[in-house]
């Protein structure tokens, strides 16, 4: 067997020269993906939203220009996707499940797929919004707006298989608004509907054949968790992507709040496994570990947001923001907290959270007799737009906002609830500023992920950053606001180095990738979504903010 020949040595020489010239490594990571790719929703299994690319850096980012624009045509609910980039091709999804493969260097569309959707998709609360696809096994995987997984041929966009997973017509239109994720040969996802009268399910499907392998119900079948029939409408949908640890074959997912959201009186138990981080065996779909952040959640404080893995002291930790305003740091192996720190500035629903155990200290719950103002609101200390982590600066970058909601709990009949309505369990609900404040505020923070210590913080005022943060090996942090400004900052100091207005608000997951050896920054622009609707009362810029949909890609000349 020939181990070394002229051809491979030439390749190695070229690779070495390129590495020296451009300063980035050509080596592939454990998933087999190169440093120029953005292979997973959070770029890799750590969910850092960190690209090691450094052609664009602190010195030259001021010269960043538009390279090309792709318009998907459908602007309903804006453009909320995180594109996937593999070998210089972008795969992304726009409103109403319009999937595109686009040449990453030119913006030329390679194929376009749109499924025929169930007519009731136009009548769901979730409507048209979709936030990504996944790519693997030569296929592009879509979670559809009517509750299917659809696998497309990566080269042609033709359907390879599809499977109906949710009981779409009978679950208030519960569906997939985030992309299903790969765990080896399993493609898996939970569904929307944490605020609706249903039980949250997570589906594991054979990624190659489309056969269902397992189904996990997040509602624990135990009367101590769910007295009487309360669990039948307990919520707990895992509506955001999980992450997969290939070393242990474990999926980590966050679950939503318990339902009815604010009226906890009919479900006086711990309500496992809602508002929890759960570890799942990818082969069997069995829960192998959990940490519940909010037992008997009474405020709509999901645990659904991104789960980052960060190594410290020879151990992997999970770093996770809950909507209630606290970041929990867990030992990944044991799922036990190693620290809990407060991210939100205004927290009044609890006196604190025990940093050693995660236990809530003296929680104040809503009742059916009086209006009570709780901070943060049901939209959380931040909406779903994801944080980023840069291994060079060792900082965690997250948008945040400060406002509250005034709530009087009330019964709502789950039998007669409208198809597009939420089972919030309220008689009164109003988003309000923090009492005594001048109005809602927002910011971009750079913090130590383990302690919460602030390195820098930028005031975004009444124009919150509603897109996911991107950080790069060029020492940069990118972030976008409600009125469409996209900014590059020095990752170490927060100094603004570049700014471009994209023409519509930003509510997506911008990425960085290589095509033809050149670094690009892809920014899906287009205001839309539900958080803006809820919070219009405290952020006037949200009200009537012009929508749109354009994938805008930047590069140096």
């Amino acid at each position, binding site marked *: 067997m020939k181990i070394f020949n002229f051809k491979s040595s030439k390749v190695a020489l070229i690779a070495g020269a390129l590495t020296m010239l451009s300063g980035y490594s050509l080596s592939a990571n454990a998933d087999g993906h190169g440093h120029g790719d953005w292979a997973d929703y959070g770029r890799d299994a750590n969910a850092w939203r960190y690209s090691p690319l450094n052609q664009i850096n602190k010195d030259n980012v001021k010269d960043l220009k538009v390279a090309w624009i792709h318009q998907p045509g459908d*602007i*309903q*609910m*804006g453009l909320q996707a995180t594109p996937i980039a593999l070998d210089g091709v972008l795969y992304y999804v726009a409103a109403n499940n319009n999937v595109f493969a686009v040449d990453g260097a030119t913006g030329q569309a390679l194929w376009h797929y749109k499924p025929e959707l169930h007519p009731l998709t*136009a*009548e*769901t*609360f979730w*409507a*048209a919004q979709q936030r990504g696809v996944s790519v693997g096994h030569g296929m592009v995987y879509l979670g559809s707006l009517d509750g299917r997984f659809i696998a497309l041929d990566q080269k042609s966009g033709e359907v390879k298989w599809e499977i109906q997973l949710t009981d779409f017509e009978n679950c208030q239109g519960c569906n997939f608004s985030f992309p299903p994720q790969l765990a080896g040969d399993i493609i898996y996802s939970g569904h929307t509907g944490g605020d609706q009268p249903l039980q949250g399910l997570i589906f594991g499907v054979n990624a190659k054949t489309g056969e269902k392998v397992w189904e996990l119900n997040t509602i624990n079948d135990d009367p101590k968790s769910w007295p009487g029939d309360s669990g039948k409408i307990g919520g707990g949908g895992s509506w955001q992507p999980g992450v997969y640890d290939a070393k242990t074959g474990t999926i980590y997912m966050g679950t939503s709040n318990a339902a009815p959201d604010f009226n906890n009186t009919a479900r006086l138990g711990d309500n496992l496994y809602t508002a929890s981080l759960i570890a799942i065996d990818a082969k069997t779909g069995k829960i192998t570990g959990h940490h519940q952040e909010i037992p008997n959640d009474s405020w709509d404080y999901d645990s659904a947001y991104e789960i980052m893995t960060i190594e410290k002291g020879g151990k992997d930790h999970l770093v996770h923001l809950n909507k209630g305003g606290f970041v929990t740091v867990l030992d990944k192996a044991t799922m036990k907290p190693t620290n809990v720190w407060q991210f939100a500035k205004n927290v009044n629903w609890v006196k604190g959270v025990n940093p050693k155990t995660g236990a809530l200290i003296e929680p104040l719950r809503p009742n059916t007799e009086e209006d009570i103002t709780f901070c943060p609101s049901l939209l959380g200390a931040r909406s779903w737009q994801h944080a980023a982590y840069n291994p060079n600066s060792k900082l965690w970058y997250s948008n945040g906002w400060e406002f509250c909601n005034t709530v009087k709990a*009330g019964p*709502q009949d789950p039998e007669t*609830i*409208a*198809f*597009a*309505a*939420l089972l*919030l369990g*309220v*008689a*009164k*609900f*109003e*988003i309000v500023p923090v009492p005594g404040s001048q109005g809602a505020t927002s910011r971009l923070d750079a913090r130590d992920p383990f302690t919460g210590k602030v390195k820098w913080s930028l005031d975004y005022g009444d124009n919150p950053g509603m897109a996911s943060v991107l950080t790069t090996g060029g020492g940069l942090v990118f972030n976008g606001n409600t009125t469409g400004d996209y900014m590059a900052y020095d990752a170490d100091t927060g100094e603004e180095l570049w700014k471009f207005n994209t023409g519509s608000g930003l509510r997506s997951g911008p990425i960085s990738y290589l095509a033809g050896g050149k670094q690009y920054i892809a920014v899906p622009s*287009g*205001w*839309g979504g*539900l958080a*803006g*609707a*809820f*919070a*219009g*009362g405290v952020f*006037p810029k*949200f*009200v*009537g903010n*012009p*929508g*749109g*949909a354009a994938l805008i890609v930047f590069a140096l000349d």
Partner: protein
Amino acid sequence: MKSKINECTTKSTLLINYTNFKMMNWLIVSFIFFTLCITYQQVLAVTDDIPAEGDRPIADVITEFQSSPETMEASELMFNQNCAYCHGNKGGGGKSRKMQCLRFLNNEYVYKTITNGKRSGSLIMPSWSRSFDKTKRLMLTAYVMSLKTLPQCSK
């Protein structure tokens, strides 16, 4: 209501029978009359849809609902539980503009929008006819119409 439809159709038929116009004119005139009849029936259909309210004009129903504090309280609760998260508390603005103090808002438009939903640019509102019967949709109409006369509207 049925008698009104019959009356209208009969008038058209009589017109066709007794007009001395040539064939082409005949057709045009009768077509216009039939179209007018259908339009008339569709406008009336808004009120005709309300089983409990008979043939009363929508304005009368809304006025009656708005004069009952109990009905308006129930309507506001329905709004809070189903509409407030996109339209804001008391219609103060969410996805779209404020629904308060709007000059041109009228009963028919509000009722039809709740019934059929609406799409405009990036905005989408679902149809609520699957979930709310006509009386409930009229209650919501009465509540939304009451937002035209909030205290701040006269400032």
